[in-house]
């Protein structure tokens, strides 16, 4: 009885296509069970679900930070699951990733962090001696100006505030010239206001650059406000997939069943505000 109305991706060019994806660690119960998901271009999809539902594993299977056990992941016609070595790195540079804890190299400057998004393109020596091509530097300044951090170029990354650090993370991902953005709880370490700014940024970048964006998120209110489509996961399966307006109380109960009731607060307008300890 799980609501599973799809957002009819038929008329758009399909960008990311996941079919029958399984991931299990050792002999434990699988974390992802025969999961199917198609994401067309220019769409912002949020993935919600309780901690341990497999959201993070799903994102990390796409760029192979986690090795899928079986199944296929296709990005613009390239099957990512079987790539090795150089081919895998070439595929990875087309997949931008944004992390919950930003994962910036603290002791390097903002500019070096931003340029590290080009590491899949430049040679080892160019990278080691920071001799990046001029067009990379132009591109870096362009994106840094776009998100308002250009004046920090020579500051050390650990001197920035959380929201600024996540902007660096976003620019680093954009530097890759990505065909898709994966954001693993990009706002979970940020205060509510900064968190909304980052969500709005991701939303508008998706439109500007015609990028599909996949966002793991715990904040259902933000998911509803900033994304076109919500995918609800539970125990490694997708049990809800639809427009934010179709995510009703019954669907929420399905997705978060087992989450203590006092952790779920419904406000007057019927908008679900959800707080779950981040994984």
């Amino acid at each position: 009885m799980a609501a599973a109305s799809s957002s009819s991706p038929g008329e758009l060019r399909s960008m990311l296509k996941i079919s029958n994806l399984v991931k299990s660690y050792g002999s434990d119960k699988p974390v992802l069970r025969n999961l199917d998901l198609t994401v067309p271009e220019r769409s912002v999809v949020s993935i919600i679900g309780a901690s341990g539902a497999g959201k993070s594993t799903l994102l990390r299977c796409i760029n192979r930070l986690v090795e899928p056990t079986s199944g296929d992941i296709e990005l613009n016609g390239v099957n990512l699951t079987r790539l090795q070595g150089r081919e895998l790195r070439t595929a990875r540079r087309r997949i931008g990733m944004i992390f919950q804890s930003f994962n910036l190299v603290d002791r390097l400057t903002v500019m070096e962090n931003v340029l590290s998004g080009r590491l899949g393109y430049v040679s080892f020596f160019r990278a080691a001696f920071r001799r990046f091509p001029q067009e990379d530097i132009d591109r870096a300044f362009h994106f840094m100006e776009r998100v308002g951090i250009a004046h920090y170029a020579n500051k050390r990354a650990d001197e920035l505030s959380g929201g600024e650090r996540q902007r660096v993370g976003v620019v680093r991902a954009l530097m890759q010239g990505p065909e898709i953005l994966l954001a693993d709880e990009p706002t979970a370490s940020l205060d509510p206001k900064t968190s909304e700014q980052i969500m709005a940024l991701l939303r508008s970048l998706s439109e500007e650059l015609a990028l599909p964006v996949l966002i793991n998120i715990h904040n259902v209110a933000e998911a509803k406000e900033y994304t076109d489509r919500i995918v609800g996961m539970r125990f490694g399966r997708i049990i809800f997939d639809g427009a934010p307006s179709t995510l009703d109380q019954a669907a929420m109960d399905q997705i978060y069943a087992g989450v203590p009731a006092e952790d779920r607060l419904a406000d007057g307008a019927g908008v679900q505000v959800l707080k779950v300890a981040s994984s």
Partner: protein
Amino acid sequence: MTTETVRRWRKPPFIRNPVLRYGLLVGSIAYVWWGLSTLPFDWPRIQEGLPRAIRMMQGAFPPSFERSNLLINGFVESIQIAVLATVVGVLISIPVAFMASRNLAPRPVYLAGRAIIILARSFHPVIVAILFVKAVGFGPLAGILTLVVYSLGFVAKLLAERIEEIDWGQVEAMKAAGAGYFTTLIYAVFPQIMPRQIGLSIYQLDSNLRASAVVGVVGAGGIGATLMNAFKRYDYDFAFAITLLIIGVILLSEAFSGYVRRKLS
């Protein structure tokens, strides 16, 4: 109010098992007793030795800096040995540390790296120096080789421990951007271990300077060799001068190394 029984609390003993606890105590006392009663504490010999020691001290006063040429040459050589050994040892220790890090190296490489470290650390520098003096003859070369081994063992071990503690998220971010193995090392690992690397190198330089005086005694060159020769020729005043200078140089190098490492952190 209900009547409550008084709840007592005592700190739990360090060793919970009473048999083990008292057994260890009795065992230790018995061992010390046995050790003291069987060791040949020869009081007459100690009594004879004391005046000889006093005569030596008298011979040492005042310290003689007359042969300052030998003194300076010895120190210059010791410092050369220490600096060269530190540079070479640290350079070799970096790849070994990467090999010996569980999170970066595949299992067989990890084991090989650990084996190198264990081997380099298993003997005291003096024993290593004796081996090298036998192998390459008296002189500073044996000293350098000894201290390279000593530096390698120490720096590689501590650096590997630091590498195993790095924030893995930064590595993941570089991988996710499509960076290759060595580029990932340069960007995500080096910046994280750099402060420790510099601190360790400076500490090792200080430590090598000290050790170079010791290994010199067994023939591996430097001021240690000068000191040994002075003793052999009963030049106690010169030996005392050397000792004073060793203390001075070590104090200086320790102050310098401490200052630099404080600046870094």
